[in-house]
């Protein structure tokens, strides 16, 4: 079983309108004008993994209030095994308004969700028995209010006590603290702050510094999105993973496709850091070149594999 962890999921509600104008009361009559889907980095990666043909994929985390039951059904409709702690507080709703002409994209990101100490204790107990059938666990995304910044550190520690490896996709202080537990693969996300390990990153030198620093602080491998490419780091070398001749339509969902495809490769063929990244980059390219934010199958990744180049970066 593949396990992905989502502590701060959301119900994503997308509204498609001709023109997004303030102070205008608009009516949406077309079914295609409204899309409701489960959101959260771990959930999206789980859906991608399911679409790539993995039979047993589990998403574990918190869901809240009456909307939690609805969210659970949305995820189960994707044939993903749900393993959630139900909290008293209602979970998040992210609102997206997409205007056609002029093309606009308005996003209201709801960060109101919080959980109690009792919920966290229940989650830790559930997590311990939830990971028994998984060897490599993906922990990704933000944490809800009420959860301590060292939660990922604690989860990684539990994984290591049970001889499981962790792929961590996190940011900020949660990431900084988690590094102490030496997760196998670390993928920081930093679009919102442009900072990794509290330092702003802009130039390629900054990125290389950050990648090497992540390894120094405890990560065994690091993957950093850099412009339209990725810089990947193991203890000996730094590589650039890039795509040639592509047409970018959107980057939404590309990170989750990358994470899922990396996992897909490791599950099927074992841990080969460079080849797993090559496969993951081809998957991210699929999403970048299409409007859809989810992968549909392996075939579309295979088609783009030859567009991916991996070259050693000399420093």
């Amino acid at each position, binding site marked *: 079983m593949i396990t992905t962890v989502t502590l701060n999921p959301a119900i994503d509600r997308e509204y498609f309108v001709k023109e997004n104008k303030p102070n205008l009361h608009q009516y949406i009559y077309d079914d295609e004008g409204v899309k409701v889907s489960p959101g959260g980095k771990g959930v999206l990666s789980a859906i991608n993994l399911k679409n790539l043909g993995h039979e047993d994929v*589990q998403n574990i985390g918190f869901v809240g209030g009456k909307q939690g039951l609805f969210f659970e059904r949305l995820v189960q409709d994707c044939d993903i095994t749900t393993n959630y702690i*139900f909290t008293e507080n209602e979970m998040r709703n992210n609102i997206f308004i997409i205007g056609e002409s002029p093309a606009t994209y308005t996003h209201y990101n709801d960060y109101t969700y919080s959980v109690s100490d009792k919920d966290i204790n229940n989650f830790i107990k559930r997590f311990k028995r939830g990971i028994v059938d998984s060897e490599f666990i993906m922990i990704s995304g933000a944490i809800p209010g009420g959860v301590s910044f060292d939660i990922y550190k604690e989860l990684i520690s539990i994984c290591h006590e049970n001889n499981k490896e962790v792929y961590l996709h996190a940011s900020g202080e949660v990431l900084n603290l988690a590094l102490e537990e030496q997760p196998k693969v670390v993928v920081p996300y930093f679009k919102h702050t442009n900072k990794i390990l509290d330092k702003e990153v802009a130039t390629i030198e900054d990125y290389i510094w950050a990648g090497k620093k992540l390894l120094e602080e405890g990560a065994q491998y690091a993957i950093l999105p850099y412009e339209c490419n990725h810089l990947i780091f193991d203890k000996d070398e730094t590589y650039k993973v890039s795509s040639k001749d592509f047409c970018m339509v959107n980057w939404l969902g590309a990170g989750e496709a990358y994470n899922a495809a990396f996992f897909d490769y490791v599950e099927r063929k074992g841990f080969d850091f460079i080849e797993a990244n090559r496969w993951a980059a081809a998957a991210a390219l699929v999403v970048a070149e299409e409007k859809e934010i989810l992968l549909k199958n392996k075939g579309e990744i295979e088609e783009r594999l030859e567009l991916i180049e991996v070259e050693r970066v000399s420093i």
Partner: protein
Amino acid sequence: MSKVKNYMMRSLNSVCQHDEVEGVIRLMHKIERSVLPVVDDENTFLGTIYIQNILKNIIPERYGFLDINKFIYERNQAAENLNNIKGKKVKDYMSKKVISVKEDESMDDMASIIIKNKESYLYVVNKEDKLRGYISRADLLYYLLEVGEEGDESRRD
């Protein structure tokens, strides 16, 4: 052949045998369910705990044709009894002899099991008896609807 795994709900909402009764009641209330699977620390399916298992231990007499004064007395007695047992462990109130089905079993086999049993839910396990979800009578009926529709189509062809 239609398999259980194609119709089951893949939910791991569960409790452990050493969890407290209060936690079970709170979880049942949140997820609107009157039965939960009981597992061990390795997620192996051990049995179920029904709301009925708890109720029969706290209500001194069955609520029935009671006059209102007796009802209030019994309600208070039930609340007091619940207060006394809410810290007790699930293992004291669970049903251990519970049939489970394997995720690779055929839906036709499942139909005969669920019809012969009183359980409203059957819990689904993998080959190692690890909990994988549940299947309900409604899922069985949904499957039968599909079988019927397929039959209609083949008759039309």
